[in-house]
């Protein structure tokens, strides 16, 4: 189980760095399926795990001058009410309902990724791509 978790962590990180799709969308099902955590615990644990990944990703992107710091700070500070409400809502829902909603989210993100990929120009050498901006 430990090895499986570490493997999922690495895979989620690589995919985030490679495709710009966030780790959370893999962390949550990974924790539910491999560890057997409840949906609420998996989501909460995923949030904590996302923090170091986002920090490192941001640091890298900042070196390329891609981060608009003031806007990022504003977004973060202005998210507090929404975040608290979101967590409260999650905890008000049953694990079953939340899990089904999350599965729908995964499909939505997959569709978003496919649309984006098919829209892109013919691939060649790819310029620096930001990590884990989504999910």
């Amino acid at each position, binding site marked *: 189980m430990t090895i499986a*978790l*570490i493997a999922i*962590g*690495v895979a989620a990180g*690589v*995919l*985030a*760095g*490679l*495709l*710009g799709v*966030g780790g*959370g969308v*893999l*962390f*949550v*099902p990974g*924790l539910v399926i491999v560890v057997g955590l409840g949906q609420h615990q998996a*989501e*909460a*644990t995923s*949030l*904590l795990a996302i*923090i170091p*990944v*986002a920090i490192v*990703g*941001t640091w*890298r*992107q*900042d070196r390329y001058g891609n981060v*608009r*710091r003031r*806007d990022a700070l504003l*977004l973060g*500070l202005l998210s507090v009410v*929404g*975040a*608290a409400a*979101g967590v409260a809502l999650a905890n008000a829902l049953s694990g079953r309902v939340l899990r*089904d*909603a*999350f*599965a*729908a989210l*995964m*499909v939505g993100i*997959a569709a*978003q*990724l*496919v649309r984006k*990929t098919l829209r892109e120009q013919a*691939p060649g050498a790819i*310029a620096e791509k*930001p*990590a*884990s*901006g*989504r*999910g």
Partner: protein
Amino acid sequence: MTAERSAQRTVRLMAIGTSAGLFSGLFGVGGGSVIVPLLVLWLSYGEREATATSLAAIVFIAGFAATVQGLYGNVDVGYAALIGVPAVGGVLLGTWLAQRLRTRSIALLFALVLMASAVELVLR
């Protein structure tokens, strides 16, 4: 920038931040799927800056949401470390690879994996 435009900008940032916060708190993800398209659409961001800025915002957003979830007693620090620390290594590897790989097939394959995992999740 005029004062009116600046106010409009702040209102949009507030809308994006709140939606992303809601998303993050509800689903345990970063919220980037909400932030990036809206930064592009509403604030004329380029894709690259949008993704990078989203990442920075996510540090705060996931931080707040994780804290509130912690108050509910839902956070397992051990598992978070077990999955999060390797992910940091993964991100460094992934961004390095992004410079060298054509990601089209990988993206489509990942989308397939996501859909399969969604089904697996629901069957649990």
